[in-house]
């Protein structure tokens, strides 16, 4: 066997540049998918049966068909409707559809995991529905949603490689182009794998950080918030629970 990893090093900057596309596609479509997913989840839980059914149907179709198919479909079908989409916008649309379907289910699970009494107590003091969702339900639901949400984010990052089929020059397509001219598939694929691993490791780190900042009862109030609430500083007070 004859492996030459210096070739991987030589092309590493090219692959790293391609990673910008991977990150851009993933983050943009996750951002769109998350905002859309929140509203889809709220619609799915709505009292109006037709709205709930509509969202159910959307999730059923989008989640039940391959993202690869969505990519082709949007890229090739758009011209039929008089639209021409570049590869990147087409990829963002397709990936956002997928992200919204999956995150809507994760958000719904989180919202439903918050006990209905929480919402009821908020209604009883006269809070309106948007305020209840924002101030009472979501802060509790977010904490429950972080692990499945971040798992999905990691899957989504890897799935962005599918955008290579519609010529988005992200990591996978770039790797293929390099090894088809250098015939060094193993080395280049190893380098590409490392890039994905770095990206997904960042997400794993983000998950750890998010889990820590949302652990409200162990973190306690910030000194600034304490001051505003007129509470004495932490630990000066015997009855406060220490940070650990």
């Amino acid at each position, binding site marked *: 066997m004859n492996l030459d990893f210096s070739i991987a090093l030589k092309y590493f900057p090219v692959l790293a540049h391609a990673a910008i596309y991977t990150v851009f596609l993933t983050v943009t479509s996750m951002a769109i998918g998350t905002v859309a997913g929140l509203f889809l989840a709220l619609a799915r839980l709505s009292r109006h049966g037709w709205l709930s059914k509509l969202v159910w149907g959307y999730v059923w179709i989008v989640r039940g068909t391959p993202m690869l198919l969505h990519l082709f479909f949007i890229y090739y079908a758009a011209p039929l409707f008089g639209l021409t989409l570049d590869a990147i916008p087409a990829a963002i649309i397709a990936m956002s559809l997928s992200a919204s379907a999956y995150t809507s289910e994760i958000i719904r699970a989180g919202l439903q995991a918050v006990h209905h009494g929480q919402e009821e107590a908020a*209604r009883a003091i006269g809070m309106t529905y948007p305020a209840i969702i924002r101030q009472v339900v979501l802060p509790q639901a977010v904490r429950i949603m972080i692990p499945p949400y971040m798992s999905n984010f990691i899957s989504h990052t890897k799935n962005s490689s599918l955008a290579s089929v519609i010529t988005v020059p992200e990591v996978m397509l770039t790797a293929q182009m390099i090894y088809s001219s250098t015939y060094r598939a193993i080395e280049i694929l190893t380098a590409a794998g490392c890039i994905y691993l770095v990206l997904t490791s960042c997400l794993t780190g983000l998950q750890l950080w998010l889990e820590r900042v949302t652990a409200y009862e162990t973190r306690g109030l910030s000194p600034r918030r304490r001051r*505003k609430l007129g509470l004495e500083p932490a630990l000066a007070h015997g009855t406060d629970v220490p940070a650990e």
Partner: protein
Amino acid sequence: MIGVEDLYKSFGSVRALDGVSLSVGLGEVVCVIGPSGSGKSTLLRCINFLEEPTRGLVRVDGRRVGYVQEVGRTRRMSGRELARMRADIGMVFQLFYLWPHMTALENVILGLTSVRGVPLEVAARRGRALLAKVGLSDKMAAYPEHLSGGQRQRVAIARALAMEPKVMLFDEPTSALDPELVEEVLQVMEQVAREGMTMVVATHEMGFARRVADRVIFMDRGRVVETGRPEDLFERPRQERTKRFLDKILA
């Protein structure tokens, strides 16, 4: 202050309220007793429209609850109108329902900042005073999970009082508590009653009803079976059903 006329509420084929009428005067304390499933909770939940009555009328402070009379028609309140109405009706739940992601003080003041638009510092000052009043000045920065049941329920009472409601509804406020924690909650409720709050209390605490209530109502199977002053109802129940219930519970 509270008027309930011929209230019916069905859940599917189950009749939870079967024609209840009731009126509570300003500053009056009414205790509602009765076996579980008798409709006590449903009655309270209809008063602040957490539950929509199937039929009947509820008024609080002279205004119809849940509906608006307009020229020639009656329509259901919008979400915003319902919220504004509920802000004036305090409610305390059996299972507290404190918000676990907020400290005791934040639980108490959320209504002030979110519903009444009171600035945070002002709300916090009022919240601190209320927590002191229910005996929890040393627990203001504690999260609910670090509080005992009795402390949680006292926070919940302070949270309801913060809105300066016109009436307070207590839905079996001590039923989920360990026996030794019941008294501290009842004492706070008694203090609220002494200060002139109009209260409707669903409870199994006969001692409290006897001591604090101006009037006791015995409910069974969605109906008011008997109503009277506590000394009359407890000593000389007129209805056989009331007598059997009291014998069982006081035995």
